[in-house]
């Protein structure tokens, strides 16, 4: 857990990629912004020349695995990994063992996050008991708990029953919650192993058709509009999904959507290696889908980037493709992948990156104190990022307990230098503080 520290003076950082200024953090807040600020007595001075300052990142979709699978990740190790990636707040998904479907479990996760202290951990509550898709979980109790849950999801499993989905959407209106749907029509994806298309046919792996995702998104958008509730679509992966969400927003549906860094960069051609490091749900899609996802994120159809950080122990990936676990870690590489796919390609400015990776996810998840403007008086939740420090990705060197990164062996264009949580550095000089 990071020690509480005195004031920090950040010299020469570039807020949202703009002109360099100094920022003074004191008492957990941004105390001053301006040129040539004087360091107060006892202040630690951080040279941030050339570094971009962004509001601390907020991840709406993280798997921390605790309770139950502490061999893959714990709340402490996962939140350390988040801090290394520039995150100051993460949402911990509900598919733990036991499932986070009661006030007791979500409070446990929330308290573990507070004790670790590397970032704020907001639990996601399950929509249905045991993720079984049969009966609504005690959503109200989780909302009223100390964890103040606002995002509910059976992520990993689709709430496929249309009536149950309708009821869930209606129910969360009472406390301004949102249902985050894992869109996957179950019958169309029985036994599916990868994106359905030329590559799956070539490899003899059962295909996962795009329409299985798109059909559920279309249904849920219509349901959400019908009952006047908020819907969030997890990890959008196809061009058709982007088109449907664009159409739904034009209709006035209150829908938001996320895309993962790996879906912005990688395609199903990588599966040719049969290396399960590329096995993920939803699967890697085609180059055409990747392009549509980038354009959708750029024009705001897709609201946010979320990591879907999914750690697995080595043995779960060092096996045959069909028996391997689905998922990839991503907290520590997300910002660099977004730089490569969205900023260096001219699709997003750094100010827009701040919106897609901090402001908008905080708004969707109703996270107080995060995703705020870099302004005097705001909580000093800030990441300092060097966009010109290429780094080779090595899964073994990460802060996460697992090493299942699909970017292993790639060189990404930048790296996080420092992360501040309420003025205290959780990461400094690229290392956990």
């Amino acid at each position, binding site marked *: 857990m990071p020690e509480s520290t005195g004031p920090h003076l950040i010299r020469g950082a570039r807020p949202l990629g703009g002109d360099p200024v100094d920022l003074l953090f004191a008492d957990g807040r941004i105390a001053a912004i301006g040129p040539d600020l004087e360091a107060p007595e006892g202040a630690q001075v951080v040279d941030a020349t050339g570094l971009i300052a962004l509001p601390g990142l907020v991840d709406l979709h993280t798997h921390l695995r605790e309770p139950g699978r502490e061999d893959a990740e714990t709340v402490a190790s996962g939140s350390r990994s988040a801090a290394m990636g520039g995150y100051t707040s993460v949402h911990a998904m509900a598919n733990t063992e036991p499932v986070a479907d009661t006030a007791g479990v979500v409070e446990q996760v929330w308290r573990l996050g507070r004790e670790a202290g590397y970032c704020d951990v907001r639990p996601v509550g399950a929509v249905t008991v045991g993720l079984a898709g049969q009966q609504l979980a005690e959503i109200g109790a989780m909302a009223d708990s100390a964890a103040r849950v606002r995002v509910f999801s059976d992520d990993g499993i689709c709430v496929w029953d249309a009536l149950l989905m309708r009821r869930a959407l209606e129910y969360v209106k009472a406390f301004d919650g949102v249902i985050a749907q894992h869109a996957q029509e179950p019958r169309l994806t029985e036994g599916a192993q990868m994106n359905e298309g030329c590559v799956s046919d070539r490899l003899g*792996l059962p295909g996962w058709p795009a329409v299985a995702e798109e059909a559920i998104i279309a249904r849920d958008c219509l349901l959400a509009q019908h009952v006047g509730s908020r819907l969030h679509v997890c990890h959008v992966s196809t061009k058709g999904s982007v088109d449907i969400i664009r159409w739904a927003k034009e209709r006035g549906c209150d829908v938001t959507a996320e895309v993962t860094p790996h879906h912005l960069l990688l395609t199903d051609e990588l599966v040719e290696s049969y290396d399960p490091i590329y096995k993920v749900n939803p699967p890697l899609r085609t180059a055409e889908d990747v392009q549509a996802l980038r354009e959708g994120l750029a024009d705001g159809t897709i609201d946010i980037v979320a990591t879907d950080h999914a750690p697995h122990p080595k043995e779960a990936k060092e*096996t045959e493709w069909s028996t391997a676990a689905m998922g990839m870690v991503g907290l520590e590489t997300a910002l660099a992948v977004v730089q490569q796919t969205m900023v260096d390609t001219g699709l997003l400015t750094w100010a827009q990156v701040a919106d897609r990776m901090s402001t908008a996810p905080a708004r969707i998840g109703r996270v107080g104190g995060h995703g705020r403007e870099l302004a005097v008086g705001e909580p000093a939740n800030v990441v300092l990022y060097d966009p010109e420090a290429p780094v080779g990705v090595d899964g073994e060197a990460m802060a996460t307990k697992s090493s299942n990164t699909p970017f292993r062996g790639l060189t990404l264009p930048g790296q996080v230098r420092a992360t501040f949580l309420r003025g205290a550095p959780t990461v400094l000089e690229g290392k956990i503080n």
Partner: protein
Amino acid sequence: MRHLLSTGDLSRDEATLILDTAAELAQVGDRSVKKLPTLRGRTVVNLFYEDSTRTRTSFELAAKRLSADVINFSAKGSSVSKGESLKDTALTLQAMGADAVVIRHSASGAAHRLANWVDGSVLNAGDGTHEHPTQALLDAYTMRDRLGRLEGLRVAVVGDILHSRVARSNVLLLTTLGAHVTLVAPPTLLPVSVNTWPCEVSYDLDEVLPKSDVVMMLRVQAERMRDSFFPSVREYSRNYGLDGERLGRMPAEAIVMHPGPMVRGMEISAEVADSPRCTVTEQVANGVSLRMAVLYLLLGGS
């Protein structure tokens, strides 16, 4: 060539070399002493995660005819049934000094994975619904043996293409060797991107039969019937089964092939299966020669 994982990895020259080598080695089967000293001192492991008596026996016989030491490693009753991973099994075989591993596995890509973990050669003896390269090679060998050529040959592959590793390997290999392949099946039993494959596609067997030099029937995997790939056995058989009447509409020299096991009465009638134009038993015999050729070439022959 270090491994044989997919027929798609074979050039025309490499595939032809395998067929020519098999033709030479076939003569060994005609001798009273059916054995060559070529692979003496080499170890071949048959690693079978799926039951397949015919394929395993064929590989075993091929290796023994070349004087290799053969170890049959079945998943049943082994450490695999106790939960050992494929990687650990591979490392064990590696430690035992296996020069070649013949693997049959229910998971597509298992042979590719194994090739990352062992130093010896890996032969794919069927992986999930992906490929079965030696089956395709023995099929090509049989066609060339019977009809004298592969270039320009018109081959119809009929039946459950979607789940068939044999069909996949055959399309790739036969195309490389200059044959024209037509896949014939109901649309539900064809891969979704079949229009990108290097072959023709038809839903009409009667239209294709008169134009085919070879008709290769595939087994319909009965275990998948419940998934409504077609309405009934009767309807499937009526549209895609090969009976005597349909056989009569094929060119006089045309042959009927089947990788086995055959389901008589559904995809092929007894009359056709027992016809001299059906090459099923020749395919089995040719399989041994062909697998001898592959082992010989992979393990240092030239």
